[in-house]
């Protein structure tokens, strides 16, 4: 579904990504691991258009077509059906939890300035979106705080809101940047179970996560990065035993 070829990203003299190749298979849950500073989040930023790479291409395969989405602005990447969360939650602070979800829904008729004044054009769509949003909030366990301002949530709840927002956006590929960092173990398992449930409905996932003890139980394929390069890939068991991976974590 997503094909990353030879991506290079440079910040001044520092080469954050040094020729990264990666393939995210359709319908699978792919995990990306690696020590701090290995370039995981930078890679996501390149794919979603937040950063532009110095070299390399990003291809998106969908509907039998291949699109070169390298360097596209974020809103166009989104339009193709790619959605992401942020490692440090980038929620809409002064919106309520519910509004955070409604704001990201796709194809809203009421977002044009002239349509905005004509409630009849969007009220029905808004009702449907609100229903879906309530279902998603109940699914991730934020149903009781739907009308609270987002800034008043706990750090863990903000993480859940990030996940809920990604689900709300109706994506084909969801990229999660550390979805369970700082979340208690039982809830972390529940989150990965939710990921699997949504995945079963046909949504592809690409997850960055440090807590491999939990994550490895739920994913199909694993990439490991260190110092801006892919150092290992394969099934979870194989990567877990790869001495290069172990060394990068201990040495890094």
């Amino acid at each position, binding site marked *: 579904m997503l094909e990353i070829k030879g991506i290079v990203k440079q910040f001044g003299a520092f080469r954050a990504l040094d020729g990264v190749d990666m393939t995210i298979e359709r319908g699978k849950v792919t995990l990306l691991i690696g020590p701090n500073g290995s370039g995981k989040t930078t890679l996501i930023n390149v794919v979603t258009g937040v950063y532009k790479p110095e070299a390399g291409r990003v291809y998106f395969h969908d509907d039998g077509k291949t699109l070169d989405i390298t360097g596209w602005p974020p809103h166009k990447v*989104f339009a193709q059906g790619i959605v992401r969360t942020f490692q440090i939650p980038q929620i809409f602070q*002064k*919106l309520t939890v519910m509004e955070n979800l409604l704001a990201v829904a796709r194809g809203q008729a009421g*977002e044009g300035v002239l349509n905005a004044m004509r409630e009849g054009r969007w009220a029905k769509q808004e009702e449907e979106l*609100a229903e879906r949003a309530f279902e998603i909030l109940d699914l991730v366990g934020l149903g009781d705080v739907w009308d609270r301002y987002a800034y008043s949530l706990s750090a863990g709840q903000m993480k859940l809101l990030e996940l809920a927002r990604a689900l709300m956006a109706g994506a084909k590929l969801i990229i999660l940047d550390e979805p369970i960092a700082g979340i208690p173990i039982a809830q972390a398992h529940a989150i990965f179970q939710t990921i699997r449930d949504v995945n079963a409905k046909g949504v592809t996932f690409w997850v960055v996560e440090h807590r491999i003890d939990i994550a490895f139980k739920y994913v199909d394929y694993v990439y490991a990065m260190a110092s801006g390069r892919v150092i290992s890939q394969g099934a979870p068991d194989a990567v877990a035993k790869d001495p290069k991976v172990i060394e990068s974590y201990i040495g890094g």
Partner: protein
Amino acid sequence: MIRDVLAKTVALVIALVVVGALAFASPLPKDVRVLLQNIEVYIAIYGIYVISLNLEVGYLGLPQFGKVMFLLIGAIAVGGIATKLVLLIYQNAIFKAMGAYPLAKISDYCMYYQYSVTSLVNQMLAQNPALGLGYFLFGVALAMVLSAGLGVLFAYPAIRLREDYLGILLLVSGEFLRVVTYYATPVACGVNGAVIPDPFAWALGETRTLVYFIATSAFLIATFLVFDAIGNSPFGRALRAIRDSETAAAVFGKDIVKFRIRVLAFASAFAGLAGALLAYYFDYTILGTYLPIYTFIGWTMLILGGLGNNVGAIVGVVVYYIVQTLLDIYKNSLQAVLHADPTYLAYAIFGLAIILVLMYRPQGIVPEKPVKTIDLNKVRERIQRKIK
């Protein structure tokens, strides 16, 4: 929800009728009524100005430091363009009376005989209220169109950049336009200032003020209705999402540049409307006076009243004018106490007020409310019933 917006609008209409009755048809002493009449017209005009600023600053988080530019463009549309159109229409009559075509030598017109020409034009307009109204509406519409276009044009070079760059560019643009148009005599008579024919010349004295009060109030009501309706829609919500996190909003499909352009065009048009009304009411304009301070007076009103809330925007304007008027009234007694000229006291007081508000009540007098699109509680109940 349009029902909520309409309820607020009706409350605004009632408030305007009450204060209007107080100022125009009450047993209050004449000088108090005249004072009230004046303040009310200003409040209506600045209400439009600050509501439009609220869409940019309160909703989108756009650092609109060039807001005064649109009062200026409104003044140019009225004093520079619509005025000349009226002079053209009456040029034969003017020629007959004064022996010269007004626009033949603009510098002479500006320096020597614009006052006498305008009083002649006003006499003729008084006989022709329909033309007066047409001239009024033309000036207003022109101000809106020009402001929308120029607002986007001036912001365009920095529209893709971070907010601070955009803010600086807008600030500089306002000053640029002010200085250039001020020293270009043909625009609006430059340093002489342009005398503006009165579109409601048929109305005299208090009736004239009443006509302006009704006209500006009608525009304020319309502005409030429009801005509160779009504020309480998916559009308004998208603006706030962009304000809170530009990166997240972009990643979730919002085209930031497009939203900025829409908001700038829309808000600038209404600020231009305020500028046109101000120029007509004043019946004189001097472009050099449109200093950046009027941008920041708008910000002051908005911060005091409540960023992100259209009701707050109006409340901020009202509070500002109450304080300002009290200071004006008690100027002399203050001078005796202070042993200094209290002219600048207003700036000091509002400066202090902003600091105190930002420290202790950053949400302002009327805080921001969540965007109200539909009744979410109802949807919630329906879903919970479905689960059971």
